[in-house]
């Protein structure tokens, strides 16, 4: 890779060990993907939940944080993804002091690195959405796919270490979605019927992700008339990224890089694949469980927006969560604070549900809290979360938000 003077100085250790490590790490990754050089980034966003970090990752962060401030502070604004423990509510979930201690150590290290602990996977709805064409280094696949696709920013999927390296140096290797040629459509889908509700959008996203099946495929959709809402796009993208490791989509006539089909195609467009109701029901059928008793109902993945929180509160009005069932709602600290002020959190909690701040259900020791609480049958309106949790010992099922609330209240999936 071609380095400029500042990058050579960082690699030589002249700007401290954290930046030396960062450049070395990114060069190793950049070489794998034939990056010619680095590209400056305006923001970084790091996934660093303690379940993923483990002792090894936390000790690594602490090692960086032990350097002098001038060497360890991040060079560009850097945000965090949801945490593994909500320190205001972990014992009732069955999380241990050991988990909480790991969390406290992570927060202390990240704070010393100058990272803004936003603890959010919906930063594009709540903190600082990137601008079209802006290069960024984001963790969380849902954040990346939304910002690439809906906002026209440029980011690869950045795992925690690489996002941190980008934050420390203000740059990332120029490969993948930082290059025009990797943002062109390689797959084309014609959608016969506009999805309904957040779950409907999630199902469509999951199906397209599964059909693409690779980081390097870029789908373009036709047949969607008019802009979906931000929350619909959020569930659509998160599910697509989860099922397919897909970081970018275009919707002709809707998303900014695709005013029309031709704009995202080099030469003749790819052969079209039609998506019909049967295809969507096929994916949904993997997560059906009508009539079953339900142990836990989860609203998360991605964290809920103000609008989703208000809707959950409305659906719970005058109702009470069943004594045998738990209802867990995960949102960002920002949204939780606002919804607290607006009385929304109080209404949700008054019905017997739990609102967790700054976590997301699947990255907060889902296996351990499932075992501690005896939760196996899980219901959610998130296509992403039902895709993930099968490997964590759950039997996940999918339903729309309204049916999820009814299930939480009756203890049984409608």
């Amino acid at each position, binding site marked *: 890779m071609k380095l400029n003077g500042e990058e050579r100085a960082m690699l030589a250790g002249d700007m401290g060990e954290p930046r030396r490590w960062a450049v070395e790490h990114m060069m190793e*990754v950049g070489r*794998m993907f034939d990056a010619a050089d680095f590209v400056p980034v305006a923001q970084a966003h790091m*996934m660093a939940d303690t379940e993923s970090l483990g002792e*090894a990752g936390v000790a690594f962060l602490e090692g960086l944080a032990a350097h002098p401030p001038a060497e360890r502070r991040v060079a560009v604004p850097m945000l965090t993804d949801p945490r593994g423990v909500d320190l205001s509510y972990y014992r009732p979930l069955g999380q241990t002091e050991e988990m909480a201690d790991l969390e406290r150590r992570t927060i202390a290290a990240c704070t010393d690195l100058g990272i803004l602990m936003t603890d959010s996977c919906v930063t594009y709805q709540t903190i600082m959405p990137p601008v079209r064409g802006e290069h960024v280094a984001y963790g969380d*696949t849902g954040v990346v796919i939304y910002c690439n696709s809906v906002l026209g920013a440029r980011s690869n999927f950045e*795992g925690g*270490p690489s996002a941190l390296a980008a934050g420390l140096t203000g740059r990332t290797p120029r490969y993948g979605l930082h290059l025009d040629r990797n943002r062109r459509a390689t797959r084309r889908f014609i959608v016969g019927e506009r999805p309904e509700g957040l779950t409907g959008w999630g199902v469509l996203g999951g199906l397209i992700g599964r059909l693409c099946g690779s980081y390097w495929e870029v789908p373009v959709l036709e047949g969607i008339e008019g802009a979906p809402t931000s929350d619909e796009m959020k569930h659509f993208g998160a599910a697509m990224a*989860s099922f397919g490791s897909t970081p970018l989509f275009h919707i002709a006539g809707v998303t900014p890089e695709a005013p029309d089909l031709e704009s995202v195609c080099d030469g003749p467009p790819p052969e079209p694949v039609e998506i019909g109701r049967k295809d969507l029901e096929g994916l949904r059928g993997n997560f059906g469980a009508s009539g079953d008793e339900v142990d836990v109902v989860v609203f998360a993945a991605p964290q809920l927006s103000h609008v989703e929180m208000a809707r959950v509160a409305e659906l719970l009005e005058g109702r009470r969560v069943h004594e045998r069932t738990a209802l867990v709602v995960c949102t960002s600290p920002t949204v939780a604070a606002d919804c607290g002020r607006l009385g929304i959190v109080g209404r949700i909690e008054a019905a017997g549900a739990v609102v967790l701040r700054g976590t997301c259900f699947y990255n907060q020791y889902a296996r351990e809290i499932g075992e501690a609480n005896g939760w196996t049958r899980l219901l959610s309106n998130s296509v992403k979360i039902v895709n993930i949790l099968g*490997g964590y010992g759950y039997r996940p099922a999918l339903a729309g938000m309204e049916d999820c609330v009814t299930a939480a209240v009756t203890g049984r999936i409608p």
Partner: protein
Amino acid sequence: MTLRLRCHPGIGPRVEGEALVAADDFSARYDLDRLAGTFSRPGHKLAGLSYVDRVLVLNTAKGGVASAWMLREMTERGLAPKAILFNAANTILAQGAAFAGMALCDRFEDGDITRLIATGDRVIVDPPAGLVTVLGKAERS
């Protein structure tokens, strides 16, 4: 007899190990019980099998960013694969391998790597050279 398979130069050190192969995808978060060292996702083609010290041979990476931290944690606890070979890696698994010091290669010249290597094959993975050698297996005709 050996089968030599050329690929894009990869990440991590040269290692030798026994292959565990499936025409399936991979995420450390979605598919593994990292405390037991086994594939735990019921629908995965390697469900129930141990991945510890094996050379995993799979189609591609899927899902989220967590694997980038997890590979190092798995390595430090001694419950990790020796190497991972993909038809196509994603950025996360490459970053995770770099952070963990784990061997990882992809983009094989001779086609689908999950068909070129079989479970139980003894393989040498040489990422800097972009070469995977399958011991005791004839060259392709």
